[in-house]
């Protein structure tokens, strides 16, 4: 049985909630459960009762440019899922909460602070034989006046990575060891999404994202275990600026969450261009 969240030594334990907590808040009007998955049919196949679906491609990404939705798009999304600035949103999903953390991260671009992740995601909920429903809930459209999207504090663009690199800043590559080494261009068992070069950004430390979780139930490891992983083994300093990246920014959202909220790293940005951008850029430095 996993150690209770508040006893795991996290800097911000409030960023996580347990499956028990979610069960107790199923009918809480101030809480909205949001499921985000890789497989868009998964929500339709069964979800936590009352949860809404936020699809990372259709709802969070701009449909033309490689970018995220605008302030107006975010306001429309919040209206659709019945979320106001006072609603506590709780994200969960498949892949040990990859996409949940990604959605959480996008919500932070708009400054929605009342946000949490359900520890363990779908896997834990299902392993505990808790109820799943197929009814799609509808909520009264909400009025949400969003702040303009603020990329700078938590999102890194390629120019930011380049300047960070020149300052020999901390970089975390959260892909698989094979992708980091450049022996493969994509995740094991995943299709190649088109990087022309393999390897990693020079100086990046390799910490595959999944090392932050307990594989049995998808929960996050304890604060001490995470400290060992990132701070002791890889010498990443919590006070230094850090940029995390993967392939398109989804796995690194998970690491971004662990570093920022669970370990309290002072400044962490997610480079969502990640390897599908860096591995295709002309003339940028690459290490193997």
């Amino acid at each position, binding site marked *: 049985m996993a150690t209770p969240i508040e006893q795991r030594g996290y800097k911000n334990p409030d960023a996580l909630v347990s499956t028990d907590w979610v069960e107790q808040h199923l009918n809480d009007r101030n809480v909205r459960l949001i499921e985000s*998955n*890789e*497989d868009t049919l*998964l929500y339709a*196949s069964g979800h936590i009762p009352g949860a809404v679906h936020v699809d*990372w491609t259709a709802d969070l990404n701009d449909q033309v440019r490689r970018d995220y939705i605008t302030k107006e798009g975010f306001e429309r999304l919040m209206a659709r899922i019945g979320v106001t600035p006072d609603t506590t949103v709780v994200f969960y999903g498949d892949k040990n909460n990859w996409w949940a953390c990604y959605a959480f991260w996008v919500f932070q671009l708009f400054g929605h602070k009342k946000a949490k992740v359900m520890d363990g995601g779908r896997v834990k909920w299902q392993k505990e034989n808790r109820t799943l429903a197929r009814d799609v809930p509808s909520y009264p459209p909400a009025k949400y006046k969003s702040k303009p999207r603020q990329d700078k504090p938590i999102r890194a663009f390629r120019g930011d990575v380049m300047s960070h690199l020149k300052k020999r800043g901390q970089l975390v590559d959260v892909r698989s060891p094979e992708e980091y080494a450049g022996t493969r261009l994509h995740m094991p068992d995943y*299709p*190649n*999404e088109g990087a022309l070069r393999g390897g990693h950004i020079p100086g990046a430390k390799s910490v595959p994202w999944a090392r932050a979780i307990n594989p049995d139930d998808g929960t996050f490891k304890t604060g001490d275990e995470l400290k060992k992983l990132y701070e002791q083994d890889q010498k990443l300093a919590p006070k230094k600026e850090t940029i995390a990246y993967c392939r398109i920014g989804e796995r690194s959202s998970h690491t971004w969450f662990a570093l920022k909220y669970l370990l309290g790293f002072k400044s962490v940005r997610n480079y969502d261009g990640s390897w599908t951008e860096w591995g295709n850029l002309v003339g940028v430095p690459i290490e193997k």
Partner: protein
Amino acid sequence: MRNDRILPPKLQQLVDTFEMFDPADRTGLLLSYADQFREVPAEVATRPFAKSHQVPQCESEAYVWAVKRPNATLDLYFAVENPAGVSAKALAAILGKTLSGLPAREIAQVTPDIVEKIFRQNISMGKGLGLMSMVQAVRTLANAAERSDTTHDA
């Protein structure tokens, strides 16, 4: 790339049916196929499944088998090991229902772009490539079966 080839009748009928549905209903229809998915029977394959039958680059860990009937048509069977692989199960059910019982050469003519016709907005780029890989794996088995027919006939 468009596939303007004529599809096998059952598959064409299914694609036409999907065309009539709006996105929300299309999701429901896909889910109904996922619900109909039946895993490969034990007389065809048992765990651990042979890696040679695994669909490459499909994160749902799908497997496919083609078994020749006495009348030289093929039966297709699938396994999807990732319990969250709902799309892979839907596609497996669709391919099994619409292509099983056809001659290998007809199955071999079905191209991966049918995935886009069926799933439309229900796939991301990575997911789409994995599903297309399932169709390609079916084609590969059908081509192999057709070649063995030709060799045998010769």
